[in-house]
Every structure is written in structure tokens, then in C-alpha cells.
């Protein structure tokens, strides 16, 4: 018996969600009195994994797996599950993780609990807490099968340092052409900017900013904070900002540590997508704006006055804490 974590990497580098998944896997393994095995595919440097409790690393390196292929990756996971006799498989909730996990579950005849936010409340019956109803509630789900797949919601468990002696082993999976039916032909990716999915901090602007010409201060604020920029739906509908910045129920989900909403009213459909951010800040001229009910910190004020001051204060703060 063991717990298997798939540690996702991109261009050889681990994503932060990989470390969170291992931290979580370590906790589940402790509950089950067993070990954590971590699978990496085409990752360069696996030494960081021992910081989070990885007892054993299975390293797969294969050019055929260079670009993500859900079916092929799922098949590799299955081979490692069999080899390591794993019962619980943990996969993150990145776009690729969400693509992969249901396939893994069917391949293993396993029950799958997606959007899991906490360590099992009980291991027999095996019960986990999941997000449901667009973050308006949680659902406790029992997984009844012998093998169990857990999809871990981003930023729900956090990183837990746990220095461990790690053993490493290479593994060459058998790859079948049939698993490469869907081929990636090209990738179109913004470089050099923090993506909403990866960001710890997201700075988001709404219709209160009046027009695209006023986004300079939003970008500057994001830069000072090392944050990604986002926007409300009308802002992208109006063409002020690109569509991939639209967050909310019908846009991208945000689960950052800090979400700063500027000139956003806080409509239910907006909140539904950003609710799982840990700390929410609102800057709005209208004290009655619904966002104040959802936020942890707020400033009632004009963004055009508040934001430049905030940028100044943050720069001072950074200079002091550098």
C-alpha cells in the first residue's frame, strides 16, 4: 500500500501545485500509516521534492511525453500505481490535472473526488470534503472503491515543509501509440507574465475604472506585487482587456492567496469564481457595493486616488523589507 502523487512540471520545472499535492499526500500517507511515492514526468531537478515529504521519487523521462498527453500520462500513472501498489492517487487541479484525473479514475476503476479541500476527515470510510455549488457550499464525499483518486483544489491545503530522505528511481513505462490519438500541434502562450492560474496574488479591475486607458495603474500595482492581472466580465466584453483575463463564474476561477478588486461591484457571478481566494480586498467608491460583504479588507474611495497611493506605499514597504 502507498499514496501516489503526480507532481506536475512544465518545461522541466515543478509547478507550485506539485509541492502542495505532495504536502497533502504526505498527510494522507500519515493517516494511512504508509509512504508517499511521487511520480515525475520529464522534470529536471527533483531535489526540491524532499522538502515536502516525498519518500520515494519515480522519475520518468521520455521525449514522447514532452508535450502533455492526458491519455498517455494517465496510462503511465496506471503503470506506476500497479508497480507501487498505490491505493490513493493525488492529482492537482491545474488545467492538465483536471484533464488527467477522470481518465486515471476510469483506468483504475477508482472513485474520484475532485475539488478536494482538506485531508480526509476519516480514512474508513474514506471521506473527503469538496467544494460544490461554485464555492457556496462544501460536500462531504465518501469514496467507496479500493483505489481512490483525489483531485486537490489549488491553494486549499497549502505547502507544508517536511524534510525527508528521498530515494529516487528511474522508470521506463511502456507507451502505446493508441494513447497519443490527440496530438498537440502548437502552443500559444504569453511569456514573462504571471498567469492567473499560477499567481499567489491577483489584481483585478472592473467597470469602475472607466476605460482601457486607465489600466496602467492596475498593471503597475500588479508588477509591484508580482501579481497577475484580471478583470470582471463586462470589462472583457467591452474589449478593454483580453478575454483570458475575465474571472468569475463564466470566466477563469481564482484561488489565490490575495485578490484585490478595484472598481468591481461584487455581483454574485463574479464572486462565485473568486471566492476561494484566501484574502480579498476591495477598493470601491460605493460603500453599499456587495463586494464589501465578501471582502476581508476594504477601502471606500476613488480608485484613481487610492491605487497610486497604494503603489507608493507598497514600494516603500518593499524597499524596507528587501
Amino acid at each position, binding site marked *: 500500500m502507498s499514496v501516489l502523487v503526480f507532481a506536475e512540471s512544465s518545461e522541466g520545472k515543478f509547478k507550485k501545485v506539485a509541492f502542495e499535492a505532495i504536502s497533502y499526500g504526505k498527510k494522507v500517507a500519515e493517516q494511512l500509516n504508509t509512504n508517499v511515492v511521487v511520480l515525475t514526468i520529464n522534470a529536471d531537478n527533483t531535489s526540491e521534492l524532499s522538502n515536502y515529504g516525498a519518500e520515494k521519487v519515480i522519475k520518468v523521462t521520455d521525449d514522447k511525453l514532452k508535450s502533455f498527453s492526458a491519455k498517455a500520462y494517465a496510462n503511465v500513472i496506471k503503470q506506476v500505481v500497479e508497480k507501487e501498489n498505490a491505493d490513493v492517487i493525488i492529482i492537482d487541479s491545474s488545467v492538465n490535472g483536471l484533464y488527467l484525473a*477522470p481518465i486515471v479514475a476510469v*483506468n483504475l476503476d477508482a472513485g474520484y473526488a475532485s475539488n478536494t479541500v482538506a485531508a480526509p476527515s476519516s480514512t474508513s470510510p474514506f471521506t473527503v470534503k469538496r467544494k460544490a455549488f461554485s464555492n457556496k*457550499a462544501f460536500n462531504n464525499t465518501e469514496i467507496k472503491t479500493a483505489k481512490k483518486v483525489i483531485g486537490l483544489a489549488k491553494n486549499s491545503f497549502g505547502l507544508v515543509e517536511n524534510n525527508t530522505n528521498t530515494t529516487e528511481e528511474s522508470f521506463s513505462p511502456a507507451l502505446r501509440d493508441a494513447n497519443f490519438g*490527440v496530438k*498537440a*500541434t502548437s*502552443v*500559444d502562450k504569453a511569456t514573462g507574465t504571471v498567469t492567473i492560474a499560477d499567481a499567489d496574488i491577483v489584481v483585478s479591475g472592473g467597470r469602475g475604472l472607466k476605460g482601457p486607458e486607465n489600466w496602467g495603474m492596475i498593471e503597475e500595482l500588479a508588477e509591484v506585487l508580482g501579481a497577475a492581472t484580471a478583470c470582471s466580465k463586462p470589462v472583457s466584453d467591452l474589449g478593454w482587456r483580453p478575454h483570458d483575463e475575465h474571472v468569475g463564474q463564466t470566466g477563469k476561477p481564482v484561488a489565490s492567496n490575495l485578490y484585490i478588486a478595484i472598481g468591481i461591484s461584487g455581483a454574485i457571478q463574479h464572486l462565485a469564481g473568486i471566492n476561494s481566494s484566501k484574502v480579498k480586498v476591495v477598493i470601491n467608491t460605493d460603500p453599499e457595493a456587495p463586494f464589501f460583504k465578501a471582502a476581508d479588507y476594504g477601502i471606500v*474611495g476613488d480608485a484613481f486616488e487610492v491605487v497610486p497611493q497604494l503603489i507608493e506605499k507598497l514600494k516603500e514597504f518593499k524597499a524596507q523589507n528587501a
Partner: protein
Amino acid sequence: MKILVCISHVPDTTSKINFTDNDTKFDTNGVQFVINPYDEFVLTRAMWFKEKQGASVTVVNVGNATTEPTLRKALAIGADDAIRVSTEATDGFFVAKQLAEVAKNGSYDLILAGKESIDYNGGMVPGMLASILNYNFINACISIEVDGTNVTASREIDGGKESLSCSLPLVIGGQKGVVEEKDLRIPNMRGIMMARKKPLTVVEPVSFDATTSSTSFEKPAAKGAVKLVDANNVGELVDLLHNEAKVI
């Protein structure tokens, strides 16, 4: 081309979420149910294939009789016929098994589903369905074109998109992008009249042991009141974010 569109029947986004029976059941009292928003995008794309490429479009739901108005709405938007697998949709794997049975019986070339349902936000059914059928699968799909049996599509990835190619049969988990929001179809009067006469077949479920079960629901802990910072004292916010919230 034969297209199957999987429709999930979900509470409208603005619904109040409450639970009954000791927090084990979703309280449907006063809740308005709609076609899952992601499914509206793929259904509209199916209409486009029907009109431009002569495809037939069947919609399917796994659910009890209360979901029929949602299927009728899909018929009013323009689907040719509907199938309801008559059983409670309790678990993603179970639903995928039922849909796989429908898919096999109808030998569909293209199966369109949404990337997730906004009720349980499972994001399970499309990938599971594709795996059970051993069809190609594209998740978070944001564009799809079909030429004969060749498919070109794209999917969302972190920070951008990826172009893909594959052949039919294919299952997608789709979202905004497969059509634009302004192009979403809504039923018109004529569609609603015609939908009444279109076939809605009720089929019995196949047996399959549930792999998961919902034991209870919880509401998030009540949030404390917002802490207001004076607009003339913005530095205090920086302080709070650093020392209290510890996020910067």
C-alpha cells in the same frame, strides 16, 4: 455526423444554496433550474454543425422526470431529439456509465459535454465517458472544427492555449470559446412550439455500483465583517496585509 450533447440540469447561478434532511440533501425549494451554462456553449456549437454541415443532434440527460423541462428547452433551441436515462444522477462515474450506454447504442461520432457542472463542479463526466468508450478526449476545449473525421481543436492551458488535432469519435469538455457568448442560442416561440412534438425517449439505467457517495453538505463558516481602512491612510492596508493577513 451524429452528435450527442450531454446536458446537465443545474440550479441557476443566483440560486440560494440551502440543504435539508440534516444537511444531506440540496433544498430545491424555490430554485430555478437551467441548462448548465457550459452545456449551452456546446449545444450552440452543435446547432452550428447541424446547420452548416448537416449533423443530427441528440441531447441526453441522466436524471429523474424533473429534468424534462431542461431537455425540452434544449429541443426548443434546436436539437432533433432527446433521451433521458431515468435515474438519480448521484455520482460522476455512474452518470458516465449511463451516458456511455446511450453513446454505444446510438453510435455517435461526436459527443459534446461541458467542462463542468456548476452544481457539484465535478468536472468528471466528460473524461470518464471518453475513457469508458475509449474515444479521443479534449478537455477545456475552446474551439472545434470537424472536416470528415478529422478534428482540429484548441484547449485552454495555463496562460494560453494549445492547438490540437485528432480524429472522430471524440468527446469534448467544452467552455466559452467553442462559441462566443453573444452567439448563444435562446429558444424562440417557434422553437418552443416545435419542441413539444419532438421525441423525448425515456430509457432505463444500466446497473453500476456507485464509486462515491455524498454523505453531507456544509456551508462555509460565516465570514467576519470587512475591515475598513480610511482612504487617506492607505499605508494601513499594506500593514494589515503584511502583519495580519500575512499575504505580502
